[in-house]
Every structure is written in structure tokens, then in C-alpha cells.
């Protein structure tokens, strides 16, 4: 079984995004970038499926500028067998990304696509569901457990108020939630080996997808700041202020 894992290069998890002075966007100049955390979980899950003898090949794919090859190399170092870079300098929307990925799904014919539920930059939570729709596949979103057997994948989903398990006919699309697994780190020998693994580059505009924007960003601004509060001395003062000043209890 072939597993396709789409990944994204995003601002590092620990870096606080700042808005550009002209309010056109977030300023990513000289900001540390990394693989989106949910994508790391997706790669890890695919590699575990391979280690369990269920997956035979893990293909990582990303869409973005040349620099995103860095994240593909990380995926290869973690255990992906090959990588595909769909190169573009345009800032694409989830629908475009899903359409480009659908082309790769057509080419690679993976039985399972595993991707992060959300990227921590645009916070859209759309791509997996859109890809499932465009490829006519079932979807198991926000997965905390994935179990593949007999042409079916059982996905336990993190839903409001508990867990829901659904059975999807393969081929299918799964999106990862936080508790699915704990991603490993790449070892130095594997990082060296990753440099020799195949990485194909495809120009985004060669895939025949209309990439015209559907959304225009009018402006990006900082959120309203909370004014600083006070430090109280003890529990008695806290309770008193909550009653008499804030009036919330």
C-alpha cells in the first residue's frame, strides 16, 4: 500500500508572528521556519504503517517556494521513500492546494493520504477534506487512531465531547490530530541518507490547475491588546476582587 503525505513549511511553532507595518500581511522575513506540527504527525503515522508492514512506500509532497525542499528533506530523513516538490512562489489557498494534490493523487494512486488537520499559519483546517471531496474519497478527520485492515481504514476522530470511530473504504484521506502519535527526531545518519533519496520537482503551473485567487486579503492587523492586569497578594484578595471589582462570581 502506498501512502502519500502532503506537508507544509510554516512559521516555527515557537515563534510569535508579527504583522507588517503596512498591514498587508504577516512578516516572515528572517523568521525561523519548520514543518507544520500536524504534518510531522502525518509523516510519523505513515512511517509507522510502513514499519508495521502495512505501507510499502511513503511519498512526501509539498507545494511552495524552493525553500520548502528543506521540509521534504526532513520528511525523507524521517523515513519517507521519495519526495515531490510542486514549485510555486504564489501564496495559494486551500482549494488550490487540494486541486494540485488531487493531480498528484491521480499520478501516484496512493491508497491512503495522510495529512495534518490544520496548518498553524493560515489556521484553515480545509485541505484534507477538500482533497477527499475532489478525489471522491471518504475522509477521517482529526484522527487520534488509525487502523488499516482488509481494504478498510478505521479512524478514531477527536470530536467535541468525545471520540467517534468511522470506517472508511480505501482509498481514503485521513487528517491527523495531536494525540495520534509522538513524532520521532531524524538521526544524523538518516539526514545524510536523505540527501540521496529521490526528490522530483514539478512546476505548479504545469499541472493544469486554475490558481486564480478566490479570496483577497484586504488587510492584516494586530489583534486588540489586553491591558495589563494586577498581581494580587493572596487568595482572599483575588476572591474579593472577582466579587467586587470584576463582578464575575
Amino acid at each position, binding site marked *: 500500500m502506498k501512502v502519500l503525505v502532503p506537508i507544509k513549511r510554516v512559521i516555527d511553532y515557537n515563534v510569535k508572528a508579527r504583522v507588517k507595518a503596512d498591514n498587508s500581511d504577516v512578516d516572515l522575513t528572517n523568521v525561523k521556519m519548520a514543518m507544520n506540527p500536524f504534518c510531522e504527525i502525518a509523516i510519523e503515522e505513515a512511517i509507522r504503517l510502513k514499519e508495521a508492514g502495512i505501507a510499502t512506500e511513503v511519498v512526501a509532497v509539498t507545494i511552495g517556494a524552493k525553500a520548502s525542499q528543506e521540509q521534504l528533506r526532513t520528511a525523507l530523513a524521517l523515513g519517507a521513500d521519495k519526495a515531490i516538490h510542486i514549485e510555486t512562489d504564489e501564496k495559494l489557498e486551500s482549494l488550490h492546494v487540494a486541486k494540485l494534490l488531487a493531480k498528484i493523487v491521480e499520478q501516484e494512486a496512493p491508497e491512503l493520504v495522510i495529512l495534518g488537520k490544520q496548518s498553524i499559519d493560515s489556521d484553515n483546517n*480545509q485541505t484534507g477534506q477538500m482533497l*477527499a471531496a475532489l478525489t471522491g474519497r471518504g475522509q477521517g478527520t482529526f484522527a487520534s487512531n488509525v487502523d488499516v485492515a482488509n481494504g478498510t481504514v478505521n479512524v478514531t476522530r477527536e470530536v467535541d*465531547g468525545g471520540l467517534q470511530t468511522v470506517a472508511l473504504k480505501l482509498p481514503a484521506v485521513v487528517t491527523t490530530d495531536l494525540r495520534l502519535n509522538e513524532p520521532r527526531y531524524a538521526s544524523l545518519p538518516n539526514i545524510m541518507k536523505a540527501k540521496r533519496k529521490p526528490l522530483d520537482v514539478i512546476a505548479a503551473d504545469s499541472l493544469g490547475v486554475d490558481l486564480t485567487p478566490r*479570496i483577497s486579503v484586504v488587510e492584516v*492587523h494586530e489583534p486588540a491588546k489586553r491591558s495589563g492586569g494586577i498581581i494580587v497578594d493572596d487568595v482572599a484578595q483575588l476572591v474579593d476582587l472577582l466579587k467586587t471589582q*470584576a463582578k464575575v462570581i
Partner: protein
Amino acid sequence: MKTLVIADHDNGVLKPETSKTINAALKLGFAVDVLIAGENLAPMSEEVASIAGVNGVLVADNSEYAHQLAENIADLVLSLAPEYSHLVASATTTGKNFMPRVAALLDVAQISEIIDVVDGDTFKRPIYAGNAIATVKSLDSKKVITVRASSFDLQGEQTAADITAIDAVFSSQLSSFVSVEQTESERPELTAAQVVISGGRGMQNGENFSLLHGIADKLGAAIGASRAAVDAGFVPNDMQVGQTGKIVAPNLYIAVGISGAIQHLAGMKDSKVIVAINKDPDAPIFQVADYGLVADLFDVLPELESAL
């Protein structure tokens, strides 16, 4: 121009997010119909019909919709889409699941988790864990939108609107329901509670979360957790407040043993009053707290419980 809101419910209980999403939808400026899909919907349909501002209720009552499988709900919404200019759902795990599928099948971009409506085409939404707010304009002729319910108000009541049954049944056969494990709790839901008390890594283990129970009982509060506490396995993921967990905006939010990582702040910083209890005076949580108490949580939690 007309708007369709898809109601969110859970085993016979209409979620408060539905009313707040209707509030957001009415700001678009068009008549709002509400679709409710599921099984045994009679009482909930009437409840939806009585939410102020609802023009009409469409009820798709069939076992195929019982578990809100995204594939079937998306096809159902798609069949109704030609009548509507705006399709709107709550950004709950249900809305987040089927709505992008609807958008893709309509060949429309989705605008996720709006926190404000500027006009029928233009919306505000948080990006980068809420560290920036983007004002975005949809260029598609049809709009597919999910709403961050905590940013909108509950609607009042009205004389019930008309209820129409939808007979169409969609059964994709792509997925099927296996089981559900409901978290049993007598406390209010995180996203609906007026008071939320959350524990972080400072709680040290899952058992210590019981220190929050007595306080939560006295305040009628829901109990939440930071991603760090979920990651460490102290508590289940559905308690997570943050960028990728639940977004809450209660009247009072009490953060206990939570340092205040960007991801956590994204989920609670719109709370009306924030209290932080942490022994580290430099913890970033104090920068957003209205009232900070620098102390060992194991000392002050029992004290707080008896003081309330």
C-alpha cells in the same frame, strides 16, 4: 441572496453554537434558513424554528444522517446549495469536517472561523494562532463560511418559523459509523460555560486535576486544559483549549499552572476576565491576566475552593 445555516447538534441536544452562528449569519443581511440533519429531530427542529431571525427550517431526518458523516451531510448540503448565496456552519468539529467538502464540491474557497462580518463578502478571521487578524474578501459568487461561535451572541426567541421536511437521502457508502465514546460530564460544555478553569503542565499529573473539580462545582465551571497537559497525557484532548483545540470566551477564565504559550492564548484570550495562578512570575500568562496570583497551585487551590 439567501443564507443557509447548518445546525449543530449532538444526540438530541441542539448546541448553543447554532444560535450564535445564526447571529453571525443574520449580519450578512439576507434571510436565514436553517438545515438540521440527523435522526429523531422533531424537538430540535422546533427549537431551531423558535430562534429569533430564522426564516424557515429544513429538516432532513434519516438514519443516514444520524452520525453526521461528512460525506453524506456534504452531499445533502450540496443538493440545497443552488437556492442559497451563503452557506454557513459553526466551526465545531462537525462543521469543520463537512464544510470544506461542500466548498470543494462547489468549487468555492471556504472562509474558516470568521469572528466578524464586515459585509456579505468581507469577513475578519484570526490567523497565526490569533496573533494576526486578517480581513478577507471572498471573490466567489457563492460563499462557504464557518463561524467561530464564541465571537457572536446568542439569539433570542421568536414565534416558530415554518418547518419543511427534506426527503432526499444521500448515502455515499464511502464511510460508515463504527462507535462513539462520549465524555461523560455533568459540568457545562467548555464552549458554552460562563466560567472555565483550566490546568496546565503545572498540574503534574491527571489525578491532580481533581483539585479543580471542587472549584468548578462551586462556580458552575467547565474544566479545560492546555495543550501541554493533553500532550503529557494528563487529560483527554477534548479538554484542550487553544489554537487547535477549543476556542472559549467565558466571563471568567482561570488558568492554573499554565505558562501561556501562544497556542493556548489563542484559545482563551477573548475571555472577559482572566485569572492566572502560576508560581513563575515571568510566565507569559500574566501578560494577558487581569488578576495574577504568583503562588504554588497546590497551596492555593484548596484555599480558593474553601474561599468561594
